[in-house]
């Protein structure tokens, strides 16, 4: 196929907590679990580090989807970073969806370091969802 | 007609770190287009708009002297978006230059007279240009005695140390370099610029004073300079303002009805006294 005819595949930006999901992704890799190669990972010290601006900026820059993944409630390395983040993301997600951004573009998950399989599943599901939505258009700055 | 908003490309040929804090660097730029170099004819005291591609644009005083052939220099302190991006640039990076803008120093008025240059801190850049211009062999005869008083917080913050060294070795310049507080190993003058001006007491006889520095230095130096007998219309100051266009259109650098970018940045003390105190 010529490059122009190449099938579109989504680009997904993933913010992974260093203490859990990042290790979870690692485990998935070491365990040779298959998941789509559409995510680009930004390692963050905690899901609480993910400023809503990061997510909005990603959407503006044309990322087709965003995934934020942190530790399960109660497991945060910094005790409550993920709990603070949870409220923040709830409001952000509700608000973005209300404005008309497709809900499938914003994804959040709790994945521990032991859950390599869950990580692979989450990525698979996210990629499927975003694929179904097609390339991002709303909020993208041209 | 030339579009004054389009920058001319130049290449960074050399980067010199000027101070110990590592936040002031001198960038030596060469034009890629020889035509652009020819058109870039500047006077001491003028400035140019520097484009760091991928970041933006900001006005910077020209630190080289028109007698320096083939290149221009800008000494930049790292403060905002553009200057930070510039500091992060390497030699060989393409930088845009628009200008030169502004009026520059009154070289014609200075001819045949004594010149007293007073500068403080990082604002010394265009004064360095002027000093080098006067000291150049083709120009030195056109001016009489040259006194330079330059102060910085500490020896590490003195910029153009290489120039200070060469100037110090010459006998046709009275160079007075001072630092705010004594530190071990420093053998030069100690004290704030105003005090040193008082001490050096350059004669105002047939002399013109050129002053540039932080507002606080200006505030305390002006009374001293007046006391020494420099008349307000023979005392020149170079101002700084937030600017965008550099050509008197964007509307933010005005002091009263004067624009610092096009009517300045050099004003006589007399002019400044007539202008609103909003700078």
């Amino acid at each position: 196929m010529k490059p122009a005819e190449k099938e579109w595949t989504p680009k997904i930006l993933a913010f992974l907590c260093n203490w859990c999901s990042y290790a979870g992704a690692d485990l998935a890799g070491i365990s040779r679990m298959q998941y789509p190669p559409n995510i680009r990972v930004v390692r963050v010290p905690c899901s609480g580090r993910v400023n809503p601006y990061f997510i909005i900026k990603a959407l503006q820059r044309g990322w087709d989807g965003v995934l934020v993944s942190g530790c399960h409630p109660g497991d945060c390395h910094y005790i409550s970073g993920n709990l603070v983040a949870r409220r923040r993301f709830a409001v952000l997600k509700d608000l973005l969806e209300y404005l008309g951004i497709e809900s499938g573009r914003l994804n959040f998950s709790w994945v521990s370091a032991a859950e390599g399989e869950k990580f692979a599943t989450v990525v698979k599901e996210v990629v499927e969802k975003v694929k179904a939505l097609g390339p991002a258009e709303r909020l993208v700055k041209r | 007609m030339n579009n004054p908003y389009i920058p001319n490309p130049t290449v960074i040929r050399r980067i010199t770190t000027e101070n110990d804090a590592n936040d002031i660097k001198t960038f030596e730029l060469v034009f890629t287009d020889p035509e652009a170099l020819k058109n870039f004819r500047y006077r001491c005291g003028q400035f140019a708009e520097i484009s760091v591609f991928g970041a933006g644009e900001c006005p910077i005083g020209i630190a080289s002297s028109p007698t320096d052939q083939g290149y221009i220099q800008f000494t930049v302190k790292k403060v905002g978006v553009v200057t930070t991006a510039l500091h992060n640039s390497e030699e060989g990076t393409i930088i845009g230059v628009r200008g030169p803008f502004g009026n520059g120093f009154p070289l014609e008025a200075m001819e045949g007279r004594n010149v007293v240059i007073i500068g403080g801190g990082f604002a010394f850049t265009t004064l360095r240009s002027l000093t080098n211009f006067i000291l150049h062999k083709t120009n030195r005869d056109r001016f009489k005695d040259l006194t330079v008083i330059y102060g910085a917080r500490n020896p590490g913050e003195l910029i153009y140390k290489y120039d200070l060294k060469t100037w110090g070795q010459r006998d046709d310049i009275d160079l007075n370099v001072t630092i705010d507080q004594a530190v071990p190993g420093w053998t030069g003058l100690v004290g704030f610029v105003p005090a040193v001006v008082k001490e050096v007491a350059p004669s105002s006889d047939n002399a013109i004073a050129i002053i540039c520095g932080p507002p606080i230095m200006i505030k305390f130096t002006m009374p001293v300079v007046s006391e020494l007998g420099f008349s307000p219309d023979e005392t020149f100051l170079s101002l700084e303002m937030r600017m965008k266009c550099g050509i008197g259109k964007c509307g933010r650098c005005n002091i009263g009805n004067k624009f610092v970018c096009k009517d300045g940045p050099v004003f006589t003390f007399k002019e400044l006294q007539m202008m609103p105190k909003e700078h």
Partner: protein
Amino acid sequence: MVVFQMVWKVIGKNKIPTLIQELNKEYEVFTPVKKENLVFFERVSSGNEAFLDFQNTKKSPKEVFFPQTEILFTYEINKQGVEIEKAPVLKRDIVLLGIRPCDAKGFLLLDKFFSSGEYKDLYYLEKRRNTTIIGLACNRPLSTCFCTSMGGAPFGKEGMDLLLQDINDKYLIETVTERGEKLIKKLPWLKDAENGDIDKVRSLSRNVEKAIKSKVSVEGVSKKLDGMFDNKQWDLIHEKCLGCGVCTYLCPTCCCFDILDEATTKWKRVRIWDSCQFSCFTLQGSGYNPRPSGKERMRQRIMHKFNYFPKNYGENFCVGCGRCVQECPVNFDIREVVEAISTDIWREKDE
């Protein structure tokens, strides 16, 4: 000055769409359009979009020549270096239809400003030079219109190439400049006006001018402001101003801008409107701000309009359109300020 024959034509109101359609073949036509309750100038593609039964547009037409966001040039950073691509030039000439006399006067002031000095602003001037302005006289000025105080008039021809004057079911078209005449010649189907109609608009013009009740004594204000930079009244008048940009953004003459670089698919250097009322307008990199509070910023706006600009260009930088009065969220009324300055209330209070 070129002498040309003054011609009066007439066009039925129902023929306006035809006129626009015809102009559209050759020009980029901008007219007032109405969207919900807002009337502002927009590029129209069909004749029916034009809305001429307005009193004053919400936004001033300055954005046709001085858009809120304008690309100065685009560039690409690649291995070879930086490639600068200049912004595309105008493809076709512009016709601006439905410009009120106050806004036309605003253009003349902007012309002076953008064409002055050593460096000309080509982005503004290129569009401006290739524009024919078809004005629309004001039959129903607003209560906040004070154009007559600022040297304008509801039937003013200053800055117009052609002027439409509304008499019931038709507009009388007065040719004002050679450029206007040229345009008229392209429209041979326009009928000549009758003398009765011309008399009618003349008397109408007088009556409407008389109907403008809002008067501001601006005479001598510029001189008086010379000594008022440190007047204590600045401390008081700015107090209710919240520092938004409504007045400056809607103003037909305010034209301060910011320049910044933006990345999308390409890098762009854009200029965007900026306002002297914003605190970051003069904020320097060092953190120092010569205009640190609302007081200085308010003073800048008033002084710029009534002292600095008159000093540099011999005219007030205000045309009396009343937009800032109408739209200020806290009802700050510039007329009151100018009036107070002119009647020496400020000077007396300061003593």
